[in-house]
């Protein structure tokens, strides 16, 4: 046995010295830990945060945004919107090149915008775009069929990557183009190596058009799908930045780590709203008083402070509360069980009813826990709730998109301008069976349709705010969905990092100023 113990001792020493041999921080390299697996890197044809994060590093876009929702120059050094709102001129920087050395021209911008218009899942982003004219190499003029105030936000890095026409315009189907996984980009970082589902190694683009950027030599996305393994990697310094952290357990645990800081503000434009959706076509739920009764029975404060341990932010309406279009005067439905019971009685359900609640199988405490909470809470107003579990996303999405549900916990994203992510839930012509995150509530109100149609083309920001205010008043009264909170997309990062992306697009912004402090 002495041999065995000696062997064990030697093994431990070897293991320890190997651990010690790992450099704590490699100069100029930042490792991002992510649970998200991208299908590919071409954000022009694939939305979502998994593709969005690397895509915003690999591709530049015409504009980027500051913390106050104001557009800033990026590939376009300046831009003008015509008086009638029907054309938008982009003046591109002169010396920008793609990663293969080819210059970025207005042709590429035109190609990218038309490609996105035809292929991106968010149709409304560029729907009014009729053509993009290219009077010279550095000028692109976007011609619109109607004024389109959402256009500028739609030209953000997360939504409008400028892709090279000479690579993607070769006639192959863009959605399955081989260059989607071996992209030739225009952004601060170039793809060096991708191991599907494992890691994305990005290296500095030495010819990036913004001088002195990016600061880092290497940006590596390490995909760790198991959250506990990911937390350990963050704790022991194997990873430096963890975006889209949304579990209170994760936040509370990493808060205690000395070398880490946590940002809870970034990403308001991504706008993830966690809500309880009603199938208004169900006979039991067609009366808005029943929906209001349920809203009055739900204690938002309890959910946020107890179930989410204070890490979520409250959200009362369909538009993110940080957005300039949010109307602060909408009702909050603060918990009031007497009012809830009275409403149930008025609606003719004094004896209560049976309801089933589904939930998106995402972060457990955001959806499943609330669904389970509803069972006890709604019991107090005579509603007997059954929680129906779904083992995975396709199961849940299959039910909800085919309107086979009564109540469901769901998270739907704003994606910048309300035209992109908000309208889809409420427009009556977007009641489409089989399509998840369409108007699966079967909500229909001609007045809402009209207000949204007007807001989509109103170029005067103040007037647009008024239209959205009226819309928010109506839908928070009629409640096709009852918004509860914002998903707490927080970013944990090493305190020695500077330039951490905390703007309105959060980690979907180019990380060209991210750096280690001296």
């Amino acid at each position, binding site marked *: 046995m002495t041999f065995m113990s000696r062997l064990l001792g030697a093994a431990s020493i070897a293991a320890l010295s190997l651990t010690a041999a790992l450099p704590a921080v490699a100069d100029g390299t930042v490792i991002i830990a992510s649970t998200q697996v991208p299908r590919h890197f071409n954000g022009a044809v694939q939305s979502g945060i998994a593709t969005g994060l690397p895509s915003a590093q690999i591709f530049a876009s015409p504009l980027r945004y500051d913390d106050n929702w104001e557009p800033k120059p990026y590939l376009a050094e300046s831009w003008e919107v015509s008086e009638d709102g029907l054309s938008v001129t982009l003046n591109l920087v002169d010396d920008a090149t793609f990663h293969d050395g080819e210059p970025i021209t207005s042709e590429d911008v035109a190609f990218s915008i038309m490609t996105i218009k035809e292929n991106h899942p968010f149709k409304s982003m560029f729907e009014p775009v009729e053509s993009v004219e290219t009077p010279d190499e550095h000028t692109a003029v976007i011609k619109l069929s109607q004024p389109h105030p959402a256009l500028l936000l739609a030209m953000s890095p997360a939504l409008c990557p400028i892709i090279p026409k000479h690579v993607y315009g070769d006639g192959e189907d863009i959605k399955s183009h081989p260059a989607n996984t071996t992209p030739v980009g225009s952004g601060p970082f170039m793809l060096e190596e991708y191991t599907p589902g494992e890691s994305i190694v990005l290296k500095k683009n030495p010819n990036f058009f913004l001088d002195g950027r990016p600061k880092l030599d290497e940006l590596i996305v390490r995909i760790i799908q198991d959250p506990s*393994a990911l937390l350990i990697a963050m704790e022991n310094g194997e990873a430096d930045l963890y975006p889209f952290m949304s579990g209170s357990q994760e936040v509370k645990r990493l808060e205690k780590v000395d070398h880490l800081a946590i940002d809870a503000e970034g990403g308001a434009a991504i706008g993830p709203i966690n809500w309880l959706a009603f199938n208004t076509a169900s006979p039991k739920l067609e009366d808005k008083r029943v929906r209001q009764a349920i809203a009055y029975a739900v204690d938002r404060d309890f959910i946020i402070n107890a179930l989410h341990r204070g890490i979520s932010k409250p959200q009362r309406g369909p538009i993110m509360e940080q957005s300039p279009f949010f109307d602060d005067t909408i009702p909050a439905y603060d918990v009031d069980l007497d009012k809830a019971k009275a409403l149930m009685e008025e609606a003719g359900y004094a004896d209560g009813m049976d309801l089933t609640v589904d939930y998106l199988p995402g972060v457990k405490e955001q959806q499943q826990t609330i669904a389970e909470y509803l069972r006890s809470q709604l019991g107090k107003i005579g509603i007997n709730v059954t929680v129906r579990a779904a083992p995975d996303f396709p199961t849940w999405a299959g039910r909800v998109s085919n309107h086979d549900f009564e109540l469901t916990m769901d998270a739907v994203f704003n994606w910048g301008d309300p035209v992109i992510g908000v309208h889809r839930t409420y427009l009556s012509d977007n009641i489409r069976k089989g*399509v998840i995150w369409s108007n699966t509530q079967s909500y229909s109100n001609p007045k809402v349709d009209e207000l949204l149609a007007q807001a989509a083309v109103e170029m005067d920001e103040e007037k647009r705010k008024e239209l959205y205010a009226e819309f928010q008043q109506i839908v928070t009264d009629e409640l096709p969905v009852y918004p509860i909170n914002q998903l707490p997309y927080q970013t944990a990062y090493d305190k020695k990092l500077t330039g951490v992306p905390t703007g309105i697009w959060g980690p979907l912004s180019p990380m060209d100023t991210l750096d280690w402090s001296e």
Partner: protein
Amino acid sequence: MTFSILLKRLGYGVLLMLGVVVLNFLLIRLAPGDPAMVIAGEMGGATEEMLSSIRAEYGLDQPVLTQLWIYISNVATGDLGQSYFFNQSVTSLIAQRIGPTILLVLVAQLLSILLGVFMGVIAARRPNGPISAFVSVFATVGYAVPVFWTGIMLIIFFASVFPIFPVEGMASIRMRNAAWYMQWLDIAHHLVLPAVTLAIIYLAQYARLSRASMMEVLGSDYIRTARAKGAGERAVLFRHALRNAALPILTVAGLQFGNLISGALLVETVFNWPGMGRLAFDSILRRDYPTIMGVLFFASMMVVVANILTDLSYRLADPRLRGKG
């Protein structure tokens, strides 16, 4: 003679794999939801046209039996198709993953056989001694405990109490540009916990089996003869007894191979090990039919090959079986 046996085994193997393909194809389609829905989910929404174009692109709008026929004929020509999720050929995805899985499974297999047999032999020497009792208890516990639980316990222990082993992944990303031997050391370092986790279950079985088998052999006449000749204890145990006791161990080792691969699925998921098991797990959640099918195809092929090899090695080890069908 051996050649015709081999052919026969191969024939069974091909039939078996055909069955695996058909059954898996039908089973996975019983799960609700489809890949188009998953892709829409990843993207935060999609239009109707987009969903139907995805379905048309992947042939999901065809009747299931037509899809099955197309799939089988493609597999017959060596084409496992394109992953719906990763936009890459399934063959290339598996090529990236098969190495880590084989490494994990082989190391775990070796570890469990060597340690298990060693423990069994030691225990068999004194069937009523304390070591034997320990081996029995350890074997029962090791076999009864679910592999993911062992994995998670090891992670907790080595992550917080005694942090000498990395608890996830196969290689440290910071070692990417290190010398090759450092990279190998790094992989070995990462391999310790997953391999031990996977080995524990099977180790227990080998220990039990070799203990029983050795006890039987140790009571036989030729062992008494060997002892009477004055052979040393070590020679008796390892040269005379173990050789005969090893036959059942060999059989079980071959049969275990399939279990090891399915065990690897769980271990890979727990330890974020970049192998085929995790690829299968991820693909099931995403309804990535071609990838699931491809992984199962390869896994069953590995099991079939392992069984054939066991069969052959069995014949090599036991002269009595040579030449028999």
